């Protein structure tokens, strides 16, 4: 199979593909269970002039974004979207108040399709007329819509074994007390039934996660009901969702982050000294997203093709088995290596991370980088006490501004790494940087090039900027300041375009979407008078007053000065003149071109800017093609 034939997004080599892929490749089945009670449609933020934002909208938004990410990334995961507290019902069990949302050509629990994403993002427009919203649990009725919803979700997740598939129910609601409207024995009974249902579901290996939406003035109280449903105790509750939703965007952000399932790359041992060896999980938090594999199709049937690989002996042309011996030419000989020997050469360590020592952070230079970093976080799962040591080292490293130098003896790519401690950073939209260490892959001397030495001036100092020039540059940088710049604020326009096109084609739309390229400089901002003046002052300071004029002069001198270009121009003129004296169409018509000399044929070709290489026949056929014969 051919990966990304244009090579636009190509990674360096095949052996590294593992690095970019997570090992934990289990499939995931998710049911998004969205509360659709009238409370969810109440205005969560009351901007005077704007349309009120609802919690329902926030939930749909999160789900759409997450589906979009899934379709781009791990598209083998399967999802279902299910509303509860609805007027209409649509589910296999025919339970009241539960509506399973789906589109055509798709099972209820299935991989997300372009159509699902599209229709889901418009679901609000027609929700009231098609699905409807009502309070599901009201006094005087034994109807329990939450119970029903959990049951439907559990039934949707029936397929697939819990071992190979991770199953989750993500529950979006802003009601912290779903049974608040009823009282007495009915209430206790219904609560008990619902809890039992949730427990059943969890016992089947399905995890239930709550994504609570809070009101600005009233925090979602997990301990009223949901703590018990989720099985939270003590400390868990306090850390569950501390920040109230002051700003809906922030809350949406928090929810979006919580919707990701953490996938670790692997668990490795980190040997610190003597017998002290702790365990850490590694996570790939930053990896380039590529547009994914392509498949070869038969253009007639549009069916996928099967790729068959065969090995052929270059000397005899015989078909051979996949060879297990490799060779490298050396000193006019063939040096053979077995697979075993090759893996022995590469195997210089034991797969663990070995601490070598510590260095101050400024020893880590800007050019000490090769690949995206890997995040490490401690785990006590197999070695109790790992987390304690990790936290202690983490704190010390932050305190003394040092990083750890370590050797990561991974089998396919052993490398020196820098472990940089990162303190937790949080904002109103939740955790921005998780606490832990980032493993930065360091280059070896073989990988570093001393390019700057190429253009060394001999016996003369390179010019340096004067203080005044530096001052002008400082003024400029203060002017063009990106105050709130955060890494990864830009969407990749190439990828956006790629998926935009695919989505349009998948839905059979004719219009190709216009994707805005966010990465272009802010021309408007740059043309503000202050900036223009700072730029101008800096320019005069480093280039002098008449720079543009000087440049123009040099360019002009270059343009007219080149001997070769003048000659070329003269030749083209001659050719055009000569070429005009023949009636080419007539010559071609009567097959007389072959009577002309090569020189004559070339007049035509040169005059029409065509290549003049090749034999006489080639020239003739080129002329005929050009004439349209």
């Amino acid at each position, binding site marked *: 199979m051919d990966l990304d034939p244009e090579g636009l997004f190509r990674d360096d080599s095949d052996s590294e593909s593992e690095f970019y892929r997570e090992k934990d490749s289990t499939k995931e089945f998710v049911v998004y269970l969205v509360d659709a009670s009238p409370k969810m449609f109440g205005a969560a933020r009351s901007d005077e002039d704007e349309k009120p934002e609802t919690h329902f909208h926030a939930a749909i938004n999160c789900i759409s974004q997450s589906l979009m990410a899934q379709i781009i990334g791990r598209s083998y995961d399967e999802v279902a979207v299910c509303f509860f507290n609805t007027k209409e019902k649509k589910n296999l069990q025919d339970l009241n108040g539960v509506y399973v949302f789906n589109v055509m050509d798709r099972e209820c629990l299935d991989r997300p399709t372009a159509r699902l994403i599209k229709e889901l993002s418009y679901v609000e427009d027609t929700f009231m007329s098609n699905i409807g919203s009502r309070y599901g649990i009201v006094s005087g009725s034994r109807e329990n819509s939450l119970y029903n919803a959990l049951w439907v979700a559990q039934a949707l997740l029936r397929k697939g074994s819990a071992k190979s598939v991770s199953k989750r129910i993500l529950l979006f609601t802003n009601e912290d007390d779903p049974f608040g409207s009823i009282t007495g024995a009915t209430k206790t009974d219904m609560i008990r039934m619902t809890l039992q249902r949730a427990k059943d579901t969890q016992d089947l290996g399905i995890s239930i996660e709550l994504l609570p939406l809070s009101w600005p003035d009233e925090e979602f109280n997990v301990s009223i009901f949901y703590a018990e449903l989720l099985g939270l105790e003590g400390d868990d509750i306090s850390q569950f969702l501390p920040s109230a939703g002051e700003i809906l965007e922030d809350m949406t952000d928090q929810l979006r982050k919580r919707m990701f399932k953490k996938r670790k790359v692997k668990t490795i041992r980190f040997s610190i000294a003597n017998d002290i060896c702790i365990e850490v999980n590694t996570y790939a938090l930053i990896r380039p997203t590529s547009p994914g594999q392509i498949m070869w*199709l038969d253009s007639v049937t549009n069916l996928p093709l099967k790729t068959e690989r065969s090995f052929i002996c270059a000397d005899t042309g015989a078909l051979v088995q996949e060879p297990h011996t490799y060779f490298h030419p050396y000193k006019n000989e063939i040096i053979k290596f077995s697979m075993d020997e090759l893996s022995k050469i590469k195997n210089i360590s034991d797969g663990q991370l070995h601490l070598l020592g510590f260095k101050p952070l400024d020893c880590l230079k800007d050019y000490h980088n090769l690949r995206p970093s890997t995040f490490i976080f401690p785990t006590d799962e197999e070695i109790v006490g790992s987390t304690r040591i990790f936290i202690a080292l983490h704190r010390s490293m932050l305190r003394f501004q040092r990083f750890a130098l370590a050797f990561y003896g991974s089998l396919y790519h052993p490398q020196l790494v820098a472990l940089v401690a*990162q303190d937790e950073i949080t904002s109103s939209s939740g955790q921005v940087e998780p606490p832990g260490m980032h493993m930065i892959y360091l280059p070896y001397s073989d990988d570093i090039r001393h390019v700057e030495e190429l253009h060394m001036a001999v016996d003369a100092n390179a010019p340096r900027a004067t203080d005044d020039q530096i001052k002008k540059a400082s003024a400029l*940088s203060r002017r063009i300041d990106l105050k709130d710049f955060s890494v990864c604020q830009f969407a990749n326009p190439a990828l956006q375009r790629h998926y935009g096109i695919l989505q349009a084609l998948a839905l059979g739309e004719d219009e190709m979407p216009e994707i805005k390229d966010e990465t272009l400089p802010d021309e408007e901002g740059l043309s503000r008078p202050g900036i223009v003046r700072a730029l101008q002052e800096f320019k005069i300071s480093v280039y002098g007053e008449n720079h543009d004029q000087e440049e123009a002069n040099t360019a002009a001198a270059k343009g007219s000065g080149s001997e070769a270009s003048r000659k070329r121009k003269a030749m083209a003129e001659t050719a055009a003149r000569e070429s005009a004296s023949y009636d080419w169409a007539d010559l071609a018509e009567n097959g007389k071109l072959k009577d002309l000399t090569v020189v004559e044929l070339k007049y035509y070709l040169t005059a029409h800017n065509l290549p003049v290489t090749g034999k006489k026949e080639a020239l003739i056929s080129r002329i005929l093609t050009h004439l349209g014969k």
Partner: protein
Amino acid sequence: MARNKEAVVLLLDVGPSMHSVLSEVESVCSMLVQKKLIFGKSDEVGVVLLGTDDTCNELQKEVGGYEHIVVLRNISVVDGNAVDFLQNLPRGNFRGDFIDAIVVGIDLLIKKFGPTNKGKQRICLMTDARYPIKAPYEGTKEDQVNTISQMMQTHGIRLDCIVIREKLPEADLRVMEENDNLLDQFSRKAIAKIVHVDSSTSLLGALKTRNISPVTVFRGDLELSSTMKIKVWVYKKTSEEKFPTLKKYSDKAPSSDKFATYEVKVDYEYKSMEDPDKVVPPEQRIRGYRYGPQVVPISSAEWEAVKFKPEKGVKLLGFTDASNILRHYYMKDVYIFVPEPGNKKAIVAVSAIARAMKDMNKSAILRCVWRQGQGNVVIGVLRPNISSVDNIPDSFYFNVLPFVEDVREFQFPSFSSFPSSWQPNEQQQEAADNLVKMLDLAPSSKEVLQPDYTPNPVLERFYHFLELKSKQPDADVPPLDGSLKRITEPNPAVFSHHKSVIDNFCKNFELKENPKKKKSSKRAWRGKPSTFSEKEEGVDDFEAMMARRDSSKWVSKAIKDMQNHVSDLLENSYDGDAYSKAIECLVALRKGCILEQEPKEFNRYLLGLYEKWKDTDLANFFELLSSKSLTLISQKEASDSNVTEEEAKNFPVKTELKF
């Protein structure tokens, strides 16, 4: 003749003070030659030794002097012999004069090439420069260096000098300082680079063993705005040197075939799914792009028409505080932006911005499209690189940053939220503090294991093994060399030096294997009942068993067991002493059957009980049931039931048997 053909003269000090590192000198030099044998077959190499017992060089014969310098190998195209020479360097017993050796090296190059081959000639000196050099016949040593530099410059000869000083027992600091100054003078007056290394490991990485002709990624304007542009050239600063790609071997070639390649070609055929024998020709293939479960076919021409096509150019988006860009966001290998060579204006402009950024601790954000037709854009961060060498202009490093799509925002618990048993106490924190402080790899600016001087142990080992195999085809993979082990394992010398700190650290922390291991999911089921252990706890056991979800059989087993349990109670009851117990159990059973949607199971059982015992002395039990309103499960309670509310209310009196 190859365009990039290079000539190198290795000047190797084999004097007594060098003996301890000679084996590393041997391996780094043979590595250089080995790589030339593979990547630069027409490069030429000469070897000159200094500090030898003998003297053998043309200058000595011509003009005298130049003692203890031996030309081991004249400049000639690399071959296997050169490796042999270099792997078996003689140990000398005299103090070599490195200035003399440089002159001998220059002499060799001039005699061989004359005025040709400028800029592709290199002298590579490895010495500890520990002993004084001889005073020249006329003028000062400085004058002599100037004259030599002049000569090197006119002939386009570069000097790479590696000064190795591991530990300095009885060293003469004054002499070394003088020597260092002389060598530094070369770097000012000629194209020369002086590198100081202090360990055998760094020595292995100090010499560039492979020449890669640098290629610019981009030449053009760095656009601060549409009116202010700086001419720059962009190169790769780091790029991983890969493990060599080996060819697949085929033994099919007849032994008589002198031109056999022994290669195996890999051929791909695309076959249709329906008809496995049909090969689909390339022109009938079309690319399919996955989008969720769909595969969207798009031809290259179509794709070309719609795909993203940004304009070539490098544009500034703005400056920002360096602290806004954390180190771990650097995505790839690193680029370097150098001002257009020879363009004074560009050099000054880059210098001004770089220095301003350095002073204010700022970074610049750029958007780059390196070449026309490139299908994507790159966003990255520009960092100042202030040159420490007078004749090298200031430049920038450029690192690629991720896009939104490239980042996964996993959430991790705060360390402070962990239970106190996971938190280090004060004493433990102090032990960790000491470890981090003391296990210092960069004490007083003597940094060890700098990436710039650390060789790739895997490549070292591969080339070493390759050479070994060329002589001894059945050789075993040799163990990792001691100097290379300094890279992959902690240095025992450093660790034993700080033994007390490490011991204290180890003492303070305790680690143990988790006995429970991974099986946590199964563990949750352990300890749950699979039979009703004691009669007294019938209800609890029943509820626990009903709640088990590892298999659906538990529900039916629980119901069955409960039914037997109730029957037992009733059968063994004497004068109603077990009634209350039995009723308690029936209530539980009834509730369970409603929850599990098994009303028929309960109704059938209750009616069976009634049928069995309605005419016995247990009949009063059923009266008790109705007084406790313990009755059949109605349709209202469980939809699967076919008992109406009315019928349930009237149980046991008027119930018709309909099961």
